[in-house]
């Protein structure tokens, strides 16, 4: 997070560098917001009169819906902008696009962008709150926060727990945010995947690097599977999808070696039969849909802390 005027936390750019207190405050607030979503009238007036823009320079359905619904349930006015329907295709720079958004006097802009650091560029140039909804291969902080909220629901305190992340950790913004956040909360992170996607250098981020999924499955409290898309990977990053599924896919046989109460997570969208088998995705250990509903509460909490009047000065700090 970066600080704006008066020491108030202005933006949510990533989990790198956030303190345990900051993370815990966000998660606690999100837990409280869940009950709003259980009511018959699922709306609170917290952000009435405020304007929240979702500016997505990369395709996304669920993250954008989640943010928009979260803003609406806080009574904010929402506006959505996406690159495919905008002028960026004509070569306008990000800052020029943002200057046009700025002229509409938004209070917060939710940004998804294919370039790492794009939200940071906006946060540096504009007074409004920037929330990173995924930047390049850098971070996806709200996804990791909702993952941690889901883990906390089942495991309580995450101190000393072991979370396995399996797949293309090197190029995953979900994995990167989880690595930073989970370690701050005292959890141990183990990653597994092909040598191209889990290079030994990842150990410098504090994680344990393994190359066989069975090594991490057995002692994990949580197994987080990442989406693999061969067509989106660089040259020679993997062999075949079949070999990937055989070496790193999570199926029932593998899951039997895990702790009976292990949580199976996935940021979605899932590739059934590739990184996760249908039986596991739909099975009793899967909390994939809980992640989605927690995402809504988490994003409401975050906007409340960053924008709400009660939040104010050191709300998220």
């Amino acid at each position, binding site marked *: 997070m970066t600080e704006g005027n008066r020491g108030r936390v202005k933006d949510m*750019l990533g989990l790198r560098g956030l303190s345990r207190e900051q993370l815990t405050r966000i998660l606690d607030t999100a837990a409280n917001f869940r009950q709003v979503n259980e009511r018959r009238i699922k709306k609170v007036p917290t952000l009435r009169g405020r304007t929240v823009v979702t500016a997505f320079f990369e395709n996304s359905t669920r993250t954008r819906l989640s943010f928009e619904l979260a803003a609406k349930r806080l009574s904010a006015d929402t506006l959505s902008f996406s690159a495919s329907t905008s002028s960026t295709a004509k070569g306008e720079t990000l800052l020029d696009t943002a200057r046009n958004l700025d002229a509409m006097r938004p209070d917060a802009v939710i940004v998804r962008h294919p*370039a*790492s*650091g794009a939200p*940071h*560029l906006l946060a540096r140039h504009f007074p409004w709150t920037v929330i990173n909804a995924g930047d*390049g*291969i850098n971070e996806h902080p709200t996804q990791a926060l909702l993952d941690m909220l889901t883990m906390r629901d089942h495991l309580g305190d995450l101190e000393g727990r072991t979370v396995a992340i399996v797949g293309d950790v090197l190029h995953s913004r979900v994995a990167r945010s989880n690595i930073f956040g989970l370690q701050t909360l005292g959890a141990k992170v183990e990653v597994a995947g092909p040598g191209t996607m889990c290079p030994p250098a990842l150990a410098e981020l504090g994680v344990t690097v393994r190359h066989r999924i069975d090594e991490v499955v057995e002692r994990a409290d949580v197994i987080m599977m990442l989406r693999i898309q061969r067509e989106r990977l*660089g040259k020679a990053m993997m062999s075949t999808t079949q070999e990937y599924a055989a070496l790193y896919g999570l199926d029932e046989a593998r899951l039997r070696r895990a702790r009976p109460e292990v949580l199976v997570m996935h940021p979605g969208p899932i590739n059934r039969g590739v990184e996760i088998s249908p039986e596991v995705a739909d099975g009793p250990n899967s909390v994939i849909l809980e992640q989605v509903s927690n995402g809504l509460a988490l994003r409401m909490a975050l906007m409340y802390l960053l924008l709400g009047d009660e939040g104010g000065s050191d709300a998220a700090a």
Partner: protein
Amino acid sequence: MLRLEGARVLCPATGVDDLLDVVLDGARIEGLYPPGAGPAGEALDCAGLVIAPAFVDLACQLCDPGFPWREDLHSGSRAGAAGGFATLVAAPATSPVVDRAAVVDHLVRRGAEAPGARVAVSGALTVGLLGLELAELGALADAGCCAFADGSRPVSDAGVLRRALEYARPFGLPVIVRPGEPALEQEGVMHEGVVSLSVGLRGLPEAAEEVGVTRVVALARATGARVHLSHVTTARAVAVIEGARREGVAVSAAVPARHLLLTDAAVAESAYDTRFRLMPPLRPERDRRALIEAVRSGVIDVVAPDHVPLGRVEKEIEFQYAEPGAVGLESAFAATLTALDGDLALTVRRLSLGPAAVLGQLARVAPGARADLVLIDPGAEGPCPAPRWSRGCNEPLQGRTLRGRVVRTLVGGVDRFPR
């Protein structure tokens, strides 16, 4: 006759380091005299300053013709003189590329009118700098090129590079190449390591430079060509060069001055500030230390400004889309002196003697020598300013405290320091 009075004359080539008056006769140095002993004439008070041979840049992006929003001969020449440079060798990566004699003619003619540092021209090693076909190196040499060079993208085909070095050798000019391996550099936008992992930017492995240096060194040995490596930034590349030198391979090497001060941590600390988007990228602390050691030992004989001016449209965008490069002419001297802990003699060796030697010249303050001189205030200290004379906006050292300041630059006996 012009007498420069009261300065400390520092000439590493002759070993002179003393308080002496330097008397100029037109474009040449007439003689050095004990204070007050020389022939009468117009005098310039230089008390408290150091007079040294002016600096030489072997690979300067003057961006002319083709990229006037970045730089042109006029602005680049003035930026050079402001930084203590008397000679700038213009890189061939212009539009059109300097791959035929007509373009060299044009640059030589326009360069003669440059108001600051002298502009020399390097010709493209391959047509269009594409690394596929040899340019007319003979015609380029006849037209006045002082070196041959490749572009920002190294010649990746070792077969072409071998033939280019063989073909270039009889013309007697040095071949300037940036060592690298494009297949390994591809998507990288910063040094691959813990910082790139942490900030989520695609990394460029250090092996890319090592592979490039190894290939160039092997081919330099095989062909006997004189090769200058324009950008050496890793400890591993330094080790390869050291080995080659021991065997007598004719290869010289330069490091960008800023790589002696900055590390890849700057990308994280600045939250993706595009002034730190460079090629080659900034390296970790262990490489920075090894580079300083190599500059001290002489394995690296040149410290370069690595001047790559860029406009706001190329830098005020997302980090990975930004053009790599930084301005360097106006800050290179102070950056080098600061990195070398104020060792002025070594700084002059690496900024003047080293690059001059690559061009087959002797940089010295001695009777009969060309009066290319820099006047330095070595005691000055302050924050590195934004570029003043260059059109480039991209100075990664801006705001950092640097030691030393260039006060005047004499090019062929004429004070060309811009005011």
